[in-house]
C-alpha cells in the first residue's frame, strides 16, 4: 500500500472542531451517514453504501468435502478484497494489514459468533457439505469499512438462497433454480459491527469517515496521540455483544466502552430491522417476477459532483434543540435498557462502573470497573 | 493443496490410467530380470559399463545468450543461460557473482506420474545440486553483485537427468561465453545387486533405489568433475554402499567424465568454426559490394570528368 500522508493542518483542524462539538460534514457525534442497501439479480449479492463508502458482497456456494474434525458441518468462508478501485493508495493483489484486519473482524463477527447454522449445510456426513463463500469487495473507501462490510456480509448472507438437493441412494441431485425453489440460509442471529472513533479519550464519533478515521489513529507532531482510537463493536439484534475490538491508543476510561455499546445496541437493531425489511420486500418483488438488477442504482444524483451539494463539508445548524440532543445520550441509554434481551446492561450510580447481570440466574454479578476508581 | 488460479486445472482426483494396468506393481526380482539378463546385458543391449550415446548441440534457444540441448537416448534436456543481471532484492554487496539455477521437469516428462506445475521438492533439490556443481566452475569473482541465470528444462526423463543437466549447463555456459575454469562434465552410475551399471535408464535408477531383500550394495551416484583440474565439484550418493564400492564407483565415474570432455569440446569448436566461416562469408560479400560500388564511382567520375 502506498503511504498516505495527512498534513498537520488537517489533523489539528479536525481535532479542534471535533473537540468543539462539530463534525466536518455537519453530523452529530452519534449520527451515522445515510445507509443504503441494494440487491442484485442473483441471490446473495448486494451493494451497501454508507455515505460515500461502498461495498459489494456476493455469496456463492459449492459442494465440497467437509473438514475431518467437523464431518457434519458446512463451511463458511469470508474473503475481503480491496482493489485499487477503493482508493488509489491500494495496490492490486496485495495483502495489506487493513485487509487481514478486516477479514479477521468479519470472521470473528460471523464465523466465531456462530450466527450461521453450519449443520444445516451438511448433505452427506463426511462426504458432501455446502461451502458458503462470501466475497466482500470494497468499491469505495471513505471510512468505516468494517461497518459497511459487515452490513454487506449480513445482508448478502440473509438474502442468499442455495439450490435445493435431493438424495437418492448414494447420489445427490442438485436442482437448478428453475426446477425447485432454493432454500434460504438459517441465521441464528444477525450480528452487525459498528465503528466509533474516539477523540480525546472521551468523545465518541459514530460512523467516522475516512478523514476522521485517519486523524484519530495518527499522531500529531506536538503530542503523540494517546487519546484517539477506533472501537469496533459487533452486536446482534438481541443486543448481545459478539465482537469488541480496539485499535489505536488504549482507553483509560471504561465508561466510553459502555457508551459505545449502548449506542451500538440501538444502531445495530435498527440496521438489522432495515436489512430484514428490505429482504422481505425484495422477496415480495421477486415473487411478483419483478426483475431486480444492480442497474437500478444508476441515478443522476452524482452529476453534481463538483457542486456544493455533493461536497461533504457542511455547517451544522445551530438549533437550540439540536445542541441539547447531543449530550443526552445517557437518557437514551436508559431507555434502551427496557428492551427485552437475554442480558441487560445497566449503567450504575457510581461513575466508571457498570454492572451486568443475567436474567436467567447463573453467575450473578460480573463487575466491570476501572481500577482507578476502585482504589 | 491450494488450487492454482493461474493455470487450467483438471479434476482434483484424477489418477493415471497406468495404475489400473495389470503389470503396475512388479517385484524386485521381476524388474531385475527384465532389465539385466544372466549374461550381464542390459535391456537396451548395452554392456554393464557402457554409457549411452550422447547427442549435444548448442545455441538451440535463440532468445538466450547461450544454450544447449543434450540427448542421451530418451533423456532430453534443454538448458539456457542468460546475461548477467544485477541480483534482485539484495541489499548487501556480494563479492562473488551468484549463479541462479532452476531445474524444471516438463509435466509429461516422467513415465510414472504427471509432474505438477508448481516446483516440488525433487526439482528444488536438483536445482541446488546443479548450483553446487556450477559454483566452483564459473569464475565468479569476475562479476561481483551480478547473477547468472541458468535454466534447465527436462523434456523427458529416462535416467541420469542431473548428470545430463550439468553437462548441458556446462555447454550452455561455455557457449554463452561465461568465463569458466574448465569444462564441467558429469555422469551417473547405478549399483544394483553389487553390479556397477554405468549411465542407468530411469527403470534402472528406480531399481537401484528400491531396497532388495538381501543386504547387498545398492544405490546411485552422480558425480561432476573438472577433468583438467582433477577436481570434483559435486558428489551425490543415495542408497546403501560400502566404502570399497564407493571408491570403485568413483574411479569409473572419473574415467567416464573424462570421456565426455572431448565430445563437449568438439561441439564448441565446431560452433566456432561455423561462426568463423559465416563471418568470413559476410566479410567477403561486403568487400565485393564495396568493390562494385567503387567501380561504379570510378565510372561516374570518368563520366563526370568527360562531361
Amino acid at each position, binding site marked *: 500500500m502506498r503511504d498516505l500522508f495527512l498534513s498537520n493542518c488537517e489533523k489539528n483542524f479536525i481535532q479542534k472542531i471535533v473537540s468543539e462539538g462539530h463534525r466536518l460534514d455537519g453530523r452529530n457525534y452519534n449520527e451515522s451517514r445515510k445507509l443504503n442497501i441494494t440487491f442484485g439479480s442473483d441471490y446473495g449479492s448486494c451493494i451497501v453504501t454508507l455515505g460515500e463508502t461502498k461495498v459489494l458482497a456476493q455469496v456463492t456456494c459449492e459442494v465440497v468435502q467437509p473438514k475431518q474434525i467437523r464431518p457434519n458441518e458446512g463451511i463458511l468462508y469470508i474473503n475481503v478484497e480491496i482493489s485499487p478501485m477503493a482508493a488509489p493508495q491500494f495496490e492490486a493483489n496485495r495483502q495489506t494489514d487493513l485487509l487481514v484486519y478486516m477479514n479477521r473482524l468479519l470472521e470473528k463477527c460471523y464465523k466465531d459468533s456462530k450466527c450461521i447454522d453450519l449443520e444445516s449445510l451438511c448433505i452427506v456426513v463426511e462426504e458432501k457439505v455446502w461451502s458458503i463463500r462470501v466475497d466482500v469487495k470494497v468499491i469505495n473507501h471513505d471510512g468505516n469499512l468494517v461497518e459497511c462490510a459487515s452490513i454487506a456480509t449480513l445482508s448478502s448472507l440473509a438474502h442468499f438462497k442455495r439450490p435445493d438437493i435431493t438424495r437418492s441412494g448414494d447420489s445427490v441431485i442438485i436442482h437448478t433454480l428453475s426446477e425447485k425453489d432454493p432454500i434460504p440460509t438459517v441465521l441464528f442471529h444477525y450480528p452487525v459491527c459498528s465503528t466509533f472513533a474516539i477523540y480525546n479519550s472521551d468523545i465518541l464519533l459514530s460512523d467516522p469517515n475516512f478523514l476522521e478515521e485517519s486523524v484519530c489513529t495518527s499522531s500529531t507532531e506536538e503530542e503523540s496521540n494517546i487519546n484517539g482510537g477506533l472501537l469496533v463493536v459487533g452486536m446482534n439484534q438481541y443486543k448481545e455483544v459478539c465482537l469488541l475490538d480496539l485499535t489505536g491508543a488504549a482507553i483509560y476510561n471504561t465508561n466510553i466502552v459502555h457508551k459505545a455499546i449502548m449506542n451500538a445496541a440501538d444502531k445495530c437493531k435498527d440496521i438489522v430491522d432495515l436489512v430484514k425489511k428490505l429482504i422481505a420486500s425484495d422477496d415480495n418483488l421477486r415473487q411478483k417476477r419483478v426483475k431486480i438488477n444492480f442497474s437500478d442504482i444508476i441515478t443522476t444524483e452524482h452529476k453534481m459532483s463538483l457542486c456544493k451539494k455533493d461536497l461533504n463539508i457542511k455547517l451544522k445548524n445551530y438549533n437550540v434543540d439540536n445542541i441539547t440532543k447531543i449530550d443526552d445520550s445517557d437518557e437514551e441509554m436508559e431507555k434502551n435498557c427496557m428492551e427485552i434481551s437475554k442480558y441487560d446492561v445497566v449503567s450504575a450510580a457510581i461513575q466508571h462502573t457498570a454492572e451486568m447481570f443475567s436474567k436467567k440466574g447463573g453467575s450473578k454479578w460480573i463487575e466491570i470497573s476501572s481500577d482507578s476508581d476502585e482504589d | 493443496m491450494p488450487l492454482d488460479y493461474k*493455470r487450467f486445472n483438471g479434476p482434483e482426483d484424477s489418477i493415471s490410467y497406468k495404475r489400473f494396468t495389470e503389470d503396475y506393481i512388479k517385484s524386485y526380482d521381476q524388474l531385475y530380470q527384465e532389465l539385466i539378463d544372466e549374461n550381464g546385458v542390459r535391456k537396451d543391449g548395452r554392456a554393464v559399463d557402457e554409457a549411452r550415446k550422447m547427442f549435444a548441440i548448442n545455441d538451440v534457444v535463440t532468445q538466450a545468450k547461450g544454450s544447449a540441448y543434450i540427448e542421451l537416448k530418451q533423456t532430453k534436456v534443454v538448458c539456457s543461460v542468460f*546475461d548477467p543481471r544485477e541480483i534482485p532484492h539484495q541489499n548487501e554487496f556480494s563479492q562473488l557473482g551468484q549463479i541462479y539455477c532452476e531445474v524444471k521437469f516438463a509435466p*509429461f516428462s516422467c513415465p510414472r506420474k504427471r509432474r505438477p506445475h508448481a516446483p516440488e521438492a525433487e526439482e528444488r533439490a536438483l536445482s541446488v545440486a546443479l548450483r553446487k556443481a556450477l559454483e566452483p566452475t564459473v569464475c565468479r569473482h569476475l562479476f561481483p553483485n551480478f547473477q547468472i541465470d541458468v535454466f534447465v528444462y527436462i523434456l523427458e526423463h529416462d535416467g541420469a537427468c542431473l548428470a545430463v543437466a550439468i553437462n548441458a549447463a556446462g555447454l550452455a555456459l561455455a557457449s554463452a561465453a561465461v568465463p569458466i575454469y574448465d569444462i564441467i562434465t558429469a555422469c551417473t552410475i547405478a549399483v544394483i545387486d553389487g553390479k556397477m551399471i554405468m549411465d542407468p535408464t530411469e527403470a534402472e535408477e528406480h531399481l537401484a533405489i528400491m531396497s532388495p531383500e538381501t543386504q547387498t550394495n545398492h544405490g546411485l551416484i552422480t558425480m561432476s568433475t573438472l577433468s583438467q583440474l582433477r577436481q570434483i565439484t559435486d558428489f551425490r550418493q543415495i542408497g546403501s554402499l560400502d566404502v570399497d564400492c564407493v571408491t570403485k564407483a568413483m574411479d569409473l565415474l572419473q574415467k567416464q567424465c573424462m570421456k565426455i570432455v572431448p565430445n563437449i569440446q568438439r561441439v564448441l569448436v565446431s560452433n566456432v568454426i561455423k561462426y568463423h566461416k559465416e563471418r568470413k562469408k559476410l566479410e567477403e560479400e561486403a568487400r565485393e559490394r564495396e568493390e562494385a560500388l567503387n567501380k561504379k564511382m570510378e565510372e561516374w567520375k570518368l563520366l563526370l570528368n568527360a562531361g
Partner: protein
Amino acid sequence: MADVYKLIHPVKFCNDYLSRNIRPDGRSFKQPRSIKINVDSIKTAEASAVVKCGNTAVVCGIQLELSPPKAEEPNVGFLVTNVELPALCSSKLKPGPPSDQAQVVNNIVSDIVLNSKCVDLKDLCIVPDKLAWVLYCDIVCVDNDGSLVDGCIIALMASLKTLSLPKVSYDAETEEIKVDPKSRTKLEIHSFPIVTSFVVYRLNQSNIILADPTAYEEDICGGSGTNLIVCYNKGLFCGTQKFGGSNLSKDCQDDALKTAKERANIVENIIDVCIRNHKNSSINE
C-alpha cells in the same frame, strides 16, 4: 554492425527494411517461416509433437488420466490444455508462477480448442457418472521467437491426431477398473484449426501486416505478443483476435484472412504428411 544498429535504433532499423518491402530476416511481408514437425518423439507422453516455426520451438505432450466426471455433466470427459512459458524460453520471463502474458496465451489456446470443437468431450466419457478420461495436454515453449499461438496449436493438433486411448473395462458392481494398454482405439478429431498470427505495423501513414512475426517484430509493433490471430478451420473461421498495435484497415484485414486461409491448407498438409511418414516408418520398424 547491423547488430549495433538494431540495438540502438530498433524502430529505424525496422523501418529501413520494411520501406524496402522486405523484413529484417529476409522474408516478404506475408511469407511465414518454415515449419518442422516431429511426432511421437517423447515416449513418456501418450502422444507428443515437437514443432519448430522458424526459431520458435514448442513441445506438446499429452498424458491420460482417469477421473469420475463432474456431477453437473455426467457424460462429459475432460480436456485440460496448459501452455507453459518457462523462464528459459525468453529473456523477458522470470522464474516463478505464470506471467500475465503466459496466462493470456494459455487462454487463447484453450479457447481455440473449445471453439473449434476438435475433440468431442462426450467421446472421453467411459461410464457416465462414474469414469471419464482426462486429457492433460501440456504445451511447453522451449524457444519463444514470436507467433507462439501458431506453434502451440500445430503442436497440439499434431499430438491429438496421433493419440489413441487404451481400452478400459469398468465393473459396475465392484467398481474395479482395468486398463489394457495394448488394445487401443484412436481418438476421433472432428476439426482441424490452424492459426496464423500477424502484427500490424504503421509505416508512413499506412498500415502493413506481417505474417508469422518474430519476437523482435512483435516488440516493435507494440502490445504484448502478436496483434492479430486468425484461426481457420476447414472452410470456416473459428476465432479471430485483434488487440494492440495499430488499427486494422479493411485491406489489411482482407489480406490477412486470405493469407491465413492459404497457410492453413499448407500447414494441414504438413501435419498430415508428417503423421503419415511417422506411421510408415514405425510400421517398417
